[in-house]
């Protein structure tokens, strides 16, 4: 089977399980809502303060939710030693990385639609006029988060302290994604007049390329047991 077909099989499997159980997406959407509410409480009822901080609040919620989803995405592979099964198939194992990454990006995309909608409602943001560029920024940010996260999720799959280690490993590395996505979102919400959007987009694109290509190249060498 070709590399593309093997990646596609893993991708399809993950999304099919999710479509039938809706375990991860329900938990993630609910969690994202709670985070948005708590952040809203933390900044008080002052609507201006919340709107000023909204780009940051949005991406804090996205980052936390992504980490939750990451844990869920690999739980399925731990039960019944699914990952070992996947690795037993012949061929390059980086197809597994690509498939899991793709499924996680799609899952996060769905949750982000709910999250951004809820944020627009709770924080009184007008996202509709900038919907297309905002979706682009969200896509770039999501690929960056998932690119690093999928590698580390696979590494920490069978470790005792996974819940502690995964955030410890992922958060420092994805700082540029958070900074880039927050800054780009802020420029978009401010009407795009401030400029500088292109620089942040370039930064996000560069990060996405480095942190999907590097794990793709390293996956076989790192996880070959």
């Amino acid at each position: 089977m070709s590399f593309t077909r093997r990646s596609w099989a893993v991708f399809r499997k993950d999304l099919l399980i999710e479509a039938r159980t809706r375990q991860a997406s329900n938990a993630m959407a609910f969690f994202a809502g709670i985070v948005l509410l708590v952040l809203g409480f933390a900044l008080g009822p002052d609507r201006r303060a919340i709107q000023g901080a909204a780009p940051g609040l949005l991406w804090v919620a996205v980052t936390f939710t992504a980490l939750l989803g990451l844990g869920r995405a690999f739980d399925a592979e731990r039960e019944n030693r699914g990952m070992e099964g996947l690795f037993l198939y012949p061929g390059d194992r980086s197809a597994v990385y690509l498939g899991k990454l793709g499924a996680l990006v799609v899952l996060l995309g769905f949750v982000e639609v709910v999250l951004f909608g809820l944020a627009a409602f709770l924080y009184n943001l007008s996202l509709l006029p900038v919907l297309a560029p905002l979706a682009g920024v969200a896509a770039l940010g999501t690929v960056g988060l998932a690119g690093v996260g999928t590698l580390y999720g696979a590494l920490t799959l069978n470790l005792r302290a996974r819940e502690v280690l995964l955030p410890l490993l992922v958060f420092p590395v994805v700082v540029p994604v958070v900074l880039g996505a927050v800054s780009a979102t802020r420029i978009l919400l401010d009407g795009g007049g401030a400029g500088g959007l292109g620089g942040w987009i370039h930064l996000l694109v560069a990060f996405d390329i480095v942190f999907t290509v590097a794990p793709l190249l390293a996956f076989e060498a790192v996880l070959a047991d």
Partner: protein
Amino acid sequence: MHTRRRPAVSALGLAALGLLAASFWVSLKLVPPDRLMGNVQRIMYVHVPAAWVGFLAFTICFGASLLYLWRRDLRWDSLARTSAELGVVFMGLSTALGSIWGKPTWGVWWTWDPRLTTAAILLFVFLGYLALRGFVDEPERRARWSAAVGIVGFLDVPIVYLSVFWWRTLHQKPSGPETVATPMRVALLLGMASFTLFFAFLLAERYRLARLESELELAEVSHV
């Protein structure tokens, strides 16, 4: 396997000690205080060398991680682990010293300066690296997995720096030998040299210990 310290390493340690003493004497006694910052500025003679050694250590960890994945020789893993530990110590020292310098100079313990923030993030990346190592018992797996974390973390450094730089361009003009007066330059270079020698000594010693630990680990495994 070297179970005892080599004479050359002992000599290196003594040389590092002597040079450190000379560097402290020069930077505390011989060099005049800074015209604007006063005696606080003397922190620079240890802060900058500690930061330099920290970066050097993380670079060695990156190189050793790549070489491990390529050659599959656990000695590279021992070197990566050793330099990551030393990097955390020196980078932590540098960050703490910078913060102590920052309070009287900038009026705050912490600012979101790109260098400061990058150093702090680098510190967290390699604390994660060491934490991961602590949770994996099987030597080969530990070596492969931590190599991935070391490589990803190091590749992240320029991107982190650039992103923080754009985000907050309140950066200080970096101090280097070319931006300070001649006596201060001598003190700074002496500090760099002595810290580098001291680091080389610690690296050699810690590496020897890491190899012994690794050998013990393998011996225990083969006895079970």
